[in-house]
């Protein structure tokens, strides 16, 4: 439950075999809306993959197609080596889905509905396992309660319990923490980590970037039905991240001196701050030479700091980028 531990440590290595393979997937809804445009995507065995995108980007459509709820217009998908259409039984046997919307059987008890899910997925009854799942999700005390009497957060837990009831190898979480309180969010993250340690592959969609930053091994950004980028989280931040050096000047400047025109500089705070943006990956960042040139022409500074752009800024710049 400790959030300070870096997410990348203490995790088993991710193998490179794709557990889900999506090829040329397109979906055009009856009204003509093109929700997905030729998506290609490989999900690796045992990883946590975060699908990031604004509302209406196609995240839920993509997940729904893989899980069999929406029929694709074109494309091929395999899950755990099985085609999801021609060999749907074997594929779905491995997959579980926690959808975004709270959809529960109001009149059923928690125990009955979770046991129902296990049976529906073709597994024989296993009361000990159901008990364990309910205890893990703090639902044990509520097992005899009718679902309609539970709070929204509890219903969300019930839906997760239902998804885990058949011991899936691949778990889809569609916006798992949307509208969820802090406690449940932390429980959810702990649960996801625990599942990952057992080798479960997890694909989650989110528009909370902090969640992707916290949890994911790899990140895919989807916008307007297109996968813009799929990258290891660390690589993504490194590759697309910008660094900024801010210098607090001793004397405000009215304009950037021509002697400094070879650096990409901007004046901020009414000329009191000089901001230099540079690429993290450049071998020569230009910082030492900039500072030297500044002292040559007599511009002094009181203080300086650097900062690296967050995933959020990267995400916003990707999604806003003209297509």
């Amino acid at each position, binding site marked *: 439950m400790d959030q300070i531990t870096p997410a990348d440590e203490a995790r088993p290595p991710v193998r490179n075999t794709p557990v889900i393979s999506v090829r040329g997937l397109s979906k055009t809804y009856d009204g003509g809306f093109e929700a997905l445009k030729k998506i290609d995507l490989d999900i690796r065995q045992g990883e946590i993959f975060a699908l990031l995108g604004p509302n209406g980007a196609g995240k839920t459509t993509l997940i729904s197609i893989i899980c069999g*709820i929406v*029929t694709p217009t074109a494309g091929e998908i395999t899950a755990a080596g099985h085609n999801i259409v021609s060999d*749907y*039984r074997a594929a779905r046997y491995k997959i579980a*889905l926690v959808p975004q919307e709270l959809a529960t*059987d109001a009149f059923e008890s928690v125990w009955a509905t979770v046991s129902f899910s296990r*049976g529906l*997925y*073709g597994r024989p009854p296993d009361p000990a396992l159901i008990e364990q799942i309910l205890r893990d999700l703090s639902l044990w005390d509520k097992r005899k309660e009718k679902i309609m009497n539970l709070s929204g957060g509890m219903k969300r837990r019930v839906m997760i319990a*239902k998804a885990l009831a058949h011991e899936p190898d691949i778990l889809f979480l569609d916006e798992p923490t949307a509208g969820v309180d802090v406690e449940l969010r932390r429980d959810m993250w702990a649960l996801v980590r625990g599942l990952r340690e057992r080798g479960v592959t997890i694909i989650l969609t989110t528009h909370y970037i902090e969640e992707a930053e916290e949890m994911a091994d790899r990140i895919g950004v989807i916008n307007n039905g297109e996968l813009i980028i799929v990258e290891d989280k660390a690589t993504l931040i490194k590759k697309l991240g910008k660094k900024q050096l801010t210098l607090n000047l001793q004397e405000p400047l009215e304009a950037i001196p021509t002697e400094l025109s070879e650096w990409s500089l901007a004046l901020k705070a009414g000329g009191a701050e000089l901001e230099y943006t540079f690429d993290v990956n450049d071998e020569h960042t230009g910082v030492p030479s900039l500072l030297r040139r500044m002292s040559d022409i007599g511009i002094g500074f009181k203080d300086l700091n650097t900062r690296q752009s967050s995933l959020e800024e990267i995400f916003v710049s990707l999604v806003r980028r003209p297509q």
Partner: protein
Amino acid sequence: MSETLPAFNTHGVFAIYRFEIARAARTILQSLLTPVITTSLYFIVFGAAIGSRIDEIGGVSYGAFIVPGLIMLSLFTESLSNASFGIYFPKFTGTIYEILSAPISAFEIVLAYVGAAATKSIILGLVILATARLFVPFEIAHPGWTIGFLVLTATTFSLFGFIIGVWAKSFEQLSFVPMLVVTPLTFLGGAFYSIDMLPPFWRTVALFNPVVYLISGFRWSFFGEGDVGVAVSLAATLGFFTLCLVIVWWIFRTGYRLKS
């Protein structure tokens, strides 16, 4: 990864079947008592009060004559409402996502939902039959056929109900077909009279009513006599059953109103 999958998802079928039966058990009053009371009222009004002033029909007292028709009437409406509600409600609440994403085939889904709905109607039909026996004395000429028609009709109308449940987009549409199509056709289809009692023109019109054949066959199994021959009745029932099967097959093939 190499575990062998069963070719038939028995646990899945039973999960849905149990769920549907449990739903009826929760609403036992509505599911069982209401139809029994309604039918009893029919017997009191038509059988005892009015029936005593009506001549025998084909050697059968009027009170006994209406028994097969009344059972059929309940069988139609209860099969339709059970099966249509069973599949409509998950669509309405959104829990259908789980059925659609589970490793369960269309055949297994239909088997579970229609099987559960048919089970409930058959039980209901037998309870009404027992209730009727309390009001009027009658003998059943061909009990095997009675059960046969009961099962076939319950299954057919449960399939029909399943189709309505998939098709319906609102609770209003859900009750549209049972209320405005099936109930009138049943009343006009000889539940309370023999179509021989109609003037020749209306008798011909009545022969276009599919319900006439269903009731006639069932009545034949009771009294050895029906409006049409038993073979025709059986053929008509099987024909309707096949039609429903084809439509259900088409629904799952195209994902009609189940998947987008």
